[in-house]
């Protein structure tokens, strides 16, 4: 039983990071209908920004804030310099995909040049070393911080989308750009804001993962991108509650496939699940939002 509960804790902390990253992906991929494969690179840059701040001896919340803003600005830059330009010139959607892949490679290359290829860890602190043992289950303070941060970020996003004029604008653009223009929504600015939010979430997820697993490397974004894509398929494209649930679900599935099947089959089970869901419920496990989102 303790082992089971420990695995639940393991799965939830991993899943919360997947969820934060995947919400950003689903906003861009599903809501805006733009394929931006540079999200993984924003995640990596966020982890490095947070690491640099932490190495200066500054507090962790500041590291997270810098990664949020840095990731967000990168997201905006990608829209302004890549996607908007391509859209204005009537480029095909696939051109954006390839361009974003190039952007991701560029960022990874830059990170390799600046930080080197070796894996770095966040500096140890009393905060990161703290562990509680509750009935044989070990819970790290870091895990609590990561999960709470993830939940807070998701709550802020939910509030923004549902209750603010910016959120309404994003949902209108998602429904139809033409309709949005007719009702007076500034489409360009709304898309830009969405890119900021998605980039910021990727950057924040980078810091959370780097902190929790002590791993920051130029290549960390590639694996995460695959996980992000998996989650948004699980949760349904453009479905934000779906991405949250999908993130936690993937974390738990990965941990439990190791725990009760075999570590050798972890990815086979994770991706097998995707096939199954695509066959049985092609719109994702949590579909329904698609119709509601306007």
């Amino acid at each position, binding site marked *: 039983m303790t082992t089971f509960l420990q695995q639940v804790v*393991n799965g939830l902390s*991993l899943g919360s990071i997947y969820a934060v990253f995947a919400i950003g992906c689903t906003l861009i991929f599903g809501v805006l209908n733009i394929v931006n494969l540079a999200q993984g690179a924003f995640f990596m840059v966020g982890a490095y920004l947070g690491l640099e701040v932490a190495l200066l001896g500054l507090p962790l919340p500041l590291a997270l804030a810098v990664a949020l803003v840095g990731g967000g600005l990168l997201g905006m830059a990608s829209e302004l310099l890549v996607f908007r330009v391509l859209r204005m010139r009537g480029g095909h959607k696939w051109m954006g995909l390839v361009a974003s892949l190039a952007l991701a490679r560029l960022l990874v290359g830059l990170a390799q040049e600046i930080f080197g290829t070796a894996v770095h860890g966040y500096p140890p602190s009393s905060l990161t070393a703290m562990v509680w043992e509750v009935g044989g289950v*070990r819970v790290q303070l870091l895990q609590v911080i990561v999960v709470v941060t993830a939940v807070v970020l998701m709550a802020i996003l939910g509030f923004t989308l549902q209750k603010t004029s910016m959120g309404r604008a994003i949902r209108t653009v998602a429904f139809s750009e033409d309709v949005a223009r007719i009702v007076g929504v500034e489409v360009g600015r709304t898309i830009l804001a969405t890119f900021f939010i998605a980039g910021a979430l990727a950057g924040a997820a980078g810091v959370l993962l780097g902190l929790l697993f*002590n791993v920051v490397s130029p*290549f960390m974004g590639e694996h995460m991108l695959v996980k992000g894509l998996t989650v948004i398929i699980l949760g349904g494209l453009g479905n934000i509650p779906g991405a949250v649930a999908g993130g936690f679900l993937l974390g738990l599935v*990965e*941990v439990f496939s190791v725990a009760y099947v075999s570590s050798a089959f972890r990815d086979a089970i994770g991706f097998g699940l995707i096939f199954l869901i695509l066959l049985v419920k092609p719109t994702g496990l949590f579909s329904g939002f698609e119709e509601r989102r306007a």
Partner: protein
Amino acid sequence: MHTRLTRLLVAVSACALATSALAEDVKLGVVQSTSGGSAALYGTMQKNGAELAAAEINASGKLGDIKLVPVHQDDAGDRGQTVNIFQRLINQDKVKVIFGPTLTTSAFAADPIANAAKVPVIASSNTAPGVPAIGEYIFRTSAPEAAVFPGVLAYAQKRYSPKTAAQIYGIDDVLMKAAYGVHKAALDKAGIKVVATETFQKGDVDYSAQLTKIKAANPDIIVVGGLAEETANIVRQARQLGIPQTTVFLGANAAISTKLADLAGPAAEGFLVGSGWFIDFDSPLNKAFVEAYKAKYGSSPDTFAAQAHAAVTIFADAVKRAGGVSDPAKLRTAIADTKDLDTVLGPFSFDNDREPVLAAKVLELKDGKFQLAPVK
């Protein structure tokens, strides 16, 4: 006066040209990953070690007119690229030897090309079984896991008398899969029961699920088949999950890196590993190497840098004995005949299978540094 000076200058420069024409440039292929994740850590160290050795040999004038010119190529840890690079180095650059490649996976893909072209390959980080078996021209200075691990296990048995063990290893890495086999065989032979076997994959960062299972099996020791960065995080996460410091970790040879202590911190104290080299190895040659490396690169060398340094030293010695590089068969035999050569690894010989023969040392991570494990 003026013309005489000009004439003199012409004569001097002609002399200079003549000597440089006499000097023979011997190109050394250095195929080491300097990008591409974990592999880059080992590749950079080996590139540095090899280039340092070549510069030292050139400066010493040991080889007379022969000048060693290292040509480095980065394969990014991707065996497809390694194959292309080998072909380019052999056919276009006409290298006389190749040092590398970084990963065993790459070695199995690319070494046959060099072997067919009769270009000797001296690896300094491939430790999986079977690498020199690829062909007559393939050598290595890196002690294979099978040569060092039984010694480490014997040491652990003497000091901790373990009855049970857990194993965790990288399933998608040829080297680590092979290390797993070596570890398993040694554990079985020692009569230590393996109570849990777990795997991970390249790029994994979260090992908590596997370690929770291992914790539940309550082994006396844990044997890790992983690279330094992976091993560091496995050890660190194990301690966070409450696997006590008294459960000693034994690692693969590939885990020896300063990065292990950097990333794992105090969690890795007591970590045991076997090696052909260590930084405080007490020999004048090694001390000079460590100093020179620090002066040139601003960081301490690791085992891989030392093994790469030894590889170039061995090659240079063979070139001298073979009287040049014009005859590949003669050069190969000279390398194979290396016997008790003084290197930074200590006296070095090749056995009949072109495997290194040297005294393995059991190291323990203590106060954040690998040290000779205390004899009890």
